[in-house]
């Protein structure tokens, strides 16, 4: 029974990992660029949520989701317009890697200097501990909520990209950056909106994670590696399979924690390596 509970909680935690990976996959799919500062923005969003919680005590942290996501969107938009568009325009795949890695180092150390290195957490109140029982299994409301939010976010993004006018523009820009310019599309603006969306998803995930585990300015590394592993396990550019990748990672981490109390992350990393060995293009990718 305890194992089944671990499995179910792993699936639910996977929803959170999938949300981290979603933003990374979106940016890669559209701009062919990996944002190495992804994890640092996740942590920054968590600090912003903690700040809001001290300003409005007694308000449920779930009400902070909207302002945190909006702030992250604005930040992503500005980041892309002011800095990253230049990096993407060089057409050298190394430039964005090095520039975003530099941004990650700057943000990480800035957070250490401004907020200190002590662990922080967001107080979830009753939500963090409430749960229900089904057939003798105890399941928390919080992980269920996380998984539901993750599935909703994936569905919304999928719909947005496949069926809306904005999605059409994004897909066209991704395929032919130069040609869409002749049709009045501004690629710089499209890229900035995509980066904003990516950071908005990441910030929601960051807020939800802060309800469960404490974080420090150095947690960004773990978040980035988790997001990256989700994308690789799922297969590049496939949103639906990224959800599966997230769940696989969540299960691996919690099962690992049960076997070996302080090294759960190790088992998640090892799962990533195992997938890389057997299916280098991910679960959804073609077999090589």
């Amino acid at each position: 029974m305890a194992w089944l509970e671990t499995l179910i909680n792993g699936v639910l935690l996977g929803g959170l990992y999938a949300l981290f990976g979603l933003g990374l996959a979106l940016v890669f799919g559209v701009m062919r660029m990996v944002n190495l500062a992804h994890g640092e923005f996740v942590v920054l969003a968590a600090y912003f949520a903690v700040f809001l919680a001290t300003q409005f005590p007694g308000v449920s942290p779930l009400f902070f989701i909207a302002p945190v996501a909006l702030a992250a969107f604005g930040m992503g938009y500005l980041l892309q317009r002011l800095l990253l568009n230049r990096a993407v325009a060089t057409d050298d795949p190394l430039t964005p890697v090095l520039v975003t890695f530099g941004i990650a180092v700057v943000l990480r150390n800035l957070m250490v200097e401004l907020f200190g290195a002590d662990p922080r957490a967001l107080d979830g109140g009753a939500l963090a501990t409430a749960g229900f029982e089904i057939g003798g299994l105890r399941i928390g409301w919080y992980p269920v909520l996380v998984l539901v939010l993750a599935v909703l976010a994936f569905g919304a993004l999928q719909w947005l990209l496949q069926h809306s006018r904005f999605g059409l523009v994004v897909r066209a820009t991704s395929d032919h950056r130069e040609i869409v310019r002749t049709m009045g599309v501004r690629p710089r603006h499209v890229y900035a909106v995509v980066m904003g969306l990516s950071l908005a998803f990441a910030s929601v995930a960051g807020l939800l994670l802060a309800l469960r585990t404490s974080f420090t300015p150095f947690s960004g590394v773990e978040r980035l590696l988790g997001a990256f592993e989700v994308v690789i396990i799922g297969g590049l550019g496939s949103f639906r399979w990224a959800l599966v990748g997230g769940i696989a990672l969540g299960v691996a981490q919690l099962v690992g924690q049960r076997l070996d109390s302080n090294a759960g992350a190790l088992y998640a990393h090892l799962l990533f390596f195992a997938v890389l060995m057997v299916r280098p293009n991910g679960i959804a990718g073609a077999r090589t």
Partner: protein
Amino acid sequence: MRPPSLVPWIGFAAAALAIAFAPTVADGGLLRLLSEVLITLAMAQMWNLLAGYTGLVSMGHQAFAGIGAYVLFVASDRLGISPYWMVPVAGLGGALLAALVAPLMFRLRDAYFSIGMWVLAEIVRLLVAKFPLFGGESGVPLQAVRLVEAESFQQNAFWISGAIGLAAVAGVYLLMRSPFGLGLMAVRDNELAATSIGVNVWRNRFIAFVLSGLGFGLAGGAHFMGTMFVSPDSAFDINWVVTAMFIVIIGGIGTIEGPLIGTVIYFGLRELFNTWFAMSGGWYLIAMGCIAIAVMLLAPRGLWGLARERWGWRGLSVQRHPPPRDEASLSAPLPPSTQGRTA
């Protein structure tokens, strides 16, 4: 091809002499700083060998530095052999790890290779921290230090660091003048064209990757021998790579002079920040990060690239010169590459 100029070798000889006599004039604190400078120079050269000449940007080379350090500590403590002799073994440890993981990591391209390497370094760190043999998470002191004379230890450690720093610069210089180096640069500039003229892309990348693993293993082993203490968090610190990367970008990626200039600027500014402005290491890394981002976007060839464009400096150029005119006219000049790096 024109015979290589003697100037670089005179420079190397002068640097070797300076390192040989430094302990007679410098005090303990200065020697420690110089050791760190030379070790960092070696790491920057090795990171540049991979990033600048093969286009593989690794965010996980701290794995090789850490393995080198742990190989040195465990081997010299267990076998009771002087740690000096274990420095080459530390390098072999780094090279072996690189050779083992290369087939897997080369499946990832561009940014995915970068982060995949980072995951690898995390796995190695977590594994090392788990085993009591390596002292667990709290780390281990170098017990074998009792096997060597205490008075000469710091001086010898400095000479070893100096040898590694010099060997890294001279090694990359020789490598880039060889046919192998030419093959590496051809792959970086146009993989398709290089393959079609018979360059073995995978083999070239593999050799460069293993050599850089060797260099980081040597540097990591020598550095932690000098500090006489190692822990998983310090050995597998991502800041090894952050420092190497900032140095290479600011100095000039894909050149031998770049890491040299970058190292001087990096440590010069650091000492300035520490002593004059009394600012913490965190603010220093923030400033370096901003400079590196600005250089990357405004002058991607780095400071050395700027100097070369503006004043035509040649330095340790490994550029090839065409043979005399009558011979050259027999072969039509190759059209300039229409494509940059192939994605």
